[in-house]
């Protein structure tokens, strides 16, 4: 079947079998390998992308379900000149170690900051509760999201 969608602002089309997940579509048709295949059952959050601005597990959607919709992946966040404030603060604080959870973690945080520019620590923790990190213990991730929120409030 054919699917048309917008990925990181660009119109794309693909011809794929109906049982293809959104995750597989992104990674294997468009070579956007930022979204990771972790548990593949919706527990770990490594495959998180934004669909129409909402964080979802891309392993739990069929490609046919995103027909005509807008998908944002980690590859759409930075441009050649600049990182997104979330990416910058994750880097500054050394919030990631192996980095596998990073794309999902940052995109889950992005939805939070778009809806809630001044989140509490508890709200940040709630927003990333679906993203497992086995390296860091989360402390510096939560701090980086708070710092990014502050930066985005000061320089919108």
């Amino acid at each position, binding site marked *: 079947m054919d699917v048309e969608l917008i990925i990181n602002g660009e119109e794309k089309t693909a011809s794929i079998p109906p049982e293809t997940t959104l995750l597989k579509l992104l990674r294997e048709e468009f070579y956007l390998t930022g979204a990771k295949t972790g548990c593949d059952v919706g527990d770990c959050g490594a495959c998180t992308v934004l669909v129409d601005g909402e964080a*979802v597990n891309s392993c739990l*959607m069929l490609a046919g379900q995103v027909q005509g919709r807008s998908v944002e992946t980690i590859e759409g966040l930075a441009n050649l000149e600049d990182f997104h404030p979330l990416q910058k603060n994750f880097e500054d604080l050394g919030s990631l170690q192996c980095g596998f959870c990073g794309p999902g973690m940052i995109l889950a945080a992005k939805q939070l900051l778009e809806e809630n520019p001044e989140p509490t620590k508890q709200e940040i923790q709630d927003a990333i509760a679906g993203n497992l990190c086995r390296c860091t213990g989360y402390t510096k991730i939560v701090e980086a999201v708070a710092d990014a929120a502050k930066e985005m409030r000061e320089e919108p």
Partner: protein
Amino acid sequence: MRPFEFVKPDSEASAIELLGKLSPNVRILAGGTDYLVDLKHAADVPKTVMDISRLPELKGIDEVDDGLRIGAGVTHTEIMQNPLIKKYAPAMIHAAHTIGAVQTRNLGTIGGNLVTCVPSMDSGPTLVALDAEVNIVGKDGTRRISLTDLFVGPRKTSLKSNELLTEIIIPKSSLGKPANFYKFGLRKGQALALVNAASSLWVKGGCFKDLRISIGAVAPVVIRCLKAEKYLEGKKIDEKLVQEAGKIAVTEAKPIDDFRASQSYRNDLIAVLVTRTINAAIDLADKD
């Protein structure tokens, strides 16, 4: 995943028509947070998977003549943000918040949570405590049943393979009714309930009125604790009686013994959760 065909009807009417034509070789996909996991590991897949996640008729939360109508395709996130739910059934917001994590709440639907019919579903107890009903549409028309009549067994409902659950109705008599939901899992995030419970009640002349108690994860389906309800109904509010009702609720459940928790631990939890939800609902009630 094994191959299947994918169809995405654009209206409820065409979904019902397709269901009639393709049943029983078709399965319905809504939020997919449960069903896609199943599909990935299934030895047998249906011939066709029908996506209803974006059907406009299954969306929306509205006040209707007989109460509050919640479209079956409404996501848990939409429930958490809806002003009518906040006004009339705020316990549902708390229940929705305990489901999965942001990513699963953005995808998962309330209708999907109910028809998947796992005993630990977190949408069930609050809706049962609010006397919710569901509308089911098939090719011969619509039928309305009480939510408790939808639940048959673990992952089994009374839906026929050519029928679609389209909306949930909270009756007018339950709108604004003091209610509380409590879930106990092993972690705060992404955990199944060991036990969950909800109670709703009115206080009339210092006495319990129309008390409803519902518990989940401790029987083949989400159940109402009729004996505990009957024990308290009409009696003067008294902390000791509430604790006794918690103990009676334990006798109405049949919890399993597994790697997450023992049967006796779950039994203890039932008594505690039932007591807590009743007390929390009393705190919310106007005392006249």
